[in-house]
């Protein structure tokens, strides 16, 4: 009976997710029906579809962060490095070679995957805060390097923008059709999700989780931790780069002040935290929440980011694991997690506890004096 319940509930979850994807697929038709002003003003519809495209891109970036941070426990503060690497590779390639947009975006993602391997090499020797700091500094260094390099000026690429930006809007565009672009972005989201989900749910995902929970125990269990960590870095880099490369083809430029901004890293983390770390599916909802909040509370100006990040902080403090996974945990039934019989620790005999207590008391008093 329990076994049946175990297999049924995830199916319920997948059904809900499928419904969500179907809803997204229907958006270009639903939006004008729901908001009649969009029917009369196609620019408004276009604007909202662009917002949803950005939500999809953020979702892909946050999912890529989640595989590395949530699943493998390698907390990256520098995912803008991968996002920017994919973006700049795509922008430069779009201006220099005559490849199809999809090839360029794919190569941009591959470049970010290679960047992931490069980051992994020193990352294998670092743990915890040192690792996070390293990724942060790497992203910052790449940002400053591009600003100094000014690739557009130096190599005569496209139209130079401020602070080393490359404007490639004539070469790097997918389509003028906003609806088609929306579906491309949705396909990117669903495809990335399926691949990352499959990895997370496979034996590879299990190895990554073992590394996250206790790296030394994972080693003792015979897992080649260096290999799996490198894999996590490169796969995460690939999808972050994919998101960045697609962004360039969405916006028409690659500018360090956006694609290499550390805010991209923070957004990715906040999104993953809001949706639930270590779930892959959570960041999708986190990203939609983030982007819709950002748009709906536009009157709040910069304050809305303050609210969003404060919310993420609250989730970290109160519902570790995110709102979604807490809800899913409820749904899947916590009864499957056996609770150990509560055995209160035996109280120490007073003859031993008392002198100790007085000793420490006099100790602190001595310190106070």
């Amino acid at each position: 009976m329990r076994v049946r319940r175990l297999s049924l509930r995830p199916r319920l979850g997948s059904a809900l997710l499928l419904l969500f994807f179907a809803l997204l697929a229907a958006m270009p038709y639903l939006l004008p029906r729901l908001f009649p002003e969009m029917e009369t003003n196609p620019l408004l519809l276009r604007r909202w579809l662009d917002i949803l495209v950005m939500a999809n891109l953020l979702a892909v970036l946050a999912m890529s962060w989640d595989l590395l941070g949530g699943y493998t426990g390698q907390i990256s503060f520098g995912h803008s490095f991968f996002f920017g690497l994919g973006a700049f590779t795509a922008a430069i390639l779009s201006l220099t070679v005559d490849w199809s947009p999809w090839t360029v975006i794919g190569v941009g993602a591959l470049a970010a995957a290679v960047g992931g391997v490069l980051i992994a090499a020193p990352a294998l020797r670092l743990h915890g805060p040192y690792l996070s700091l390293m990724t942060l500094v790497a992203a910052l260094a790449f940002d400053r390097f591009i600003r100094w390099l000014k690739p557009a000026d130096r190599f005569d690429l496209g139209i130079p923008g401020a602070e080393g930006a490359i404007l490639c809007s004539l070469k790097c565009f997918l389509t003028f059709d906003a609806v088609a672009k929306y579906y491309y972005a949705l396909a990117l989201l669903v495809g990335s999700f399926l691949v990352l989900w499959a990895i997370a749910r496979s034996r590879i995902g299990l190895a990554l989780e073992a590394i996250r929970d206790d790296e030394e125990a994972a080693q003792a269990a015979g897992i080649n931790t260096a290999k799996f960590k490198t894999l996590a870095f490169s796969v995460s880099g690939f999808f972050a780069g994919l998101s960045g490369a697609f962004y360039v083809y969405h916006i028409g430029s690659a500018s360090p002040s956006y694609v290499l901004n550390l805010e991209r890293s923070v957004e990715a983390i906040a999104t993953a935290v809001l949706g639930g770390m270590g779930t892959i599916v959570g960041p999708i909802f986190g990203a939609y929440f983030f982007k819709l909040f950002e748009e709906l509370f536009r009157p709040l100006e910069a304050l809305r980011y303050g609210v969003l990040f404060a919310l993420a902080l609250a989730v970290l403090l109160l519902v570790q694991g995110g709102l979604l996974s807490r809800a899913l945990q409820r749904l899947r039934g916590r009864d499957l997690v056996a609770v150990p019989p509560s055995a209160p620790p035996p109280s120490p005999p007073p003859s031993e506890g008392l002198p100790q207590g007085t000793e420490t008391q006099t100790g602190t008093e001595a310190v106070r004096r």
Partner: protein
Amino acid sequence: MTRRGPKGSEPLLRVEGLSKAFGGLQAVSDLSFHVREGEILGLIGPNGAGKTTAFHLITGMHKPDRGRIVFRGREITGWPPYRVVQAGIARTFQIPRPFPHKTIAQNVEIALLPNALFTLRGRRRDRWARVAACCTRAGLCQTVGHPPAAHTPNGRCECWHTYPGALPQAGLRKLEIAKALANDPHLLLLDEPFAGLTHREVEELSELVRELRAEGRTVVIVDHNMRGLMKLVERVVVIHFGHKLAEGTPEEVAENPAVQEAYLAGTLDRSSSSSSSSSTLKEGPSR
């Protein structure tokens, strides 16, 4: 399934002149000993003598400063931990280290995961069959309240639905052993498997160790208290301040004056009936 060694004189594991310092602390210095095929060896010594460090060095978790480790005729010094495991050495931790967010079965499955990214071997169905075998072997199914005869047709027991947090201390030790067994080791290194267990649990675990030896596995047990080991081990190596102090049968070692000195005399008095590890004399001076 017996795996008595084909090479007559060559020991299963040979440790030669092993040294390791952490900063100014010489944890292991010039330590040499060997493990014979098919024996149960006790590696004992007072707390901080370097027993666990020796395990870390053998399993590749630390790189030795000097010395050689030879396992089944192959030098494995400085190998990464996963290769040592593949070579046939598995270990348990002094303080059990389960993966808390994974079920007991998944904990064991983690030890069975192939390292290759793409492989046809190690299909999930086969892995789960091995998991079931290991859980049963280590007595985990009974610990989680599953009668031995009541397995489901696919061989799964309550381990598939129970998390390590529900296990008592003895159960966690069994889980450690099940994880180690999943790697099908020739040599099993157990780090203080009896600490904090009741007399009955110690007996039960000792019986499991004997059975594993009968299967042809070689076992090395680390403990700071020899009393519990006396009936189990055939040979003892005593470590003190990082080097070998004595070696021999439990009786010989217990009579050794240098060993008695190291243990502040009398700790190794095995005529005492209580085998609870809390009554070692090393705790004597602190009382």
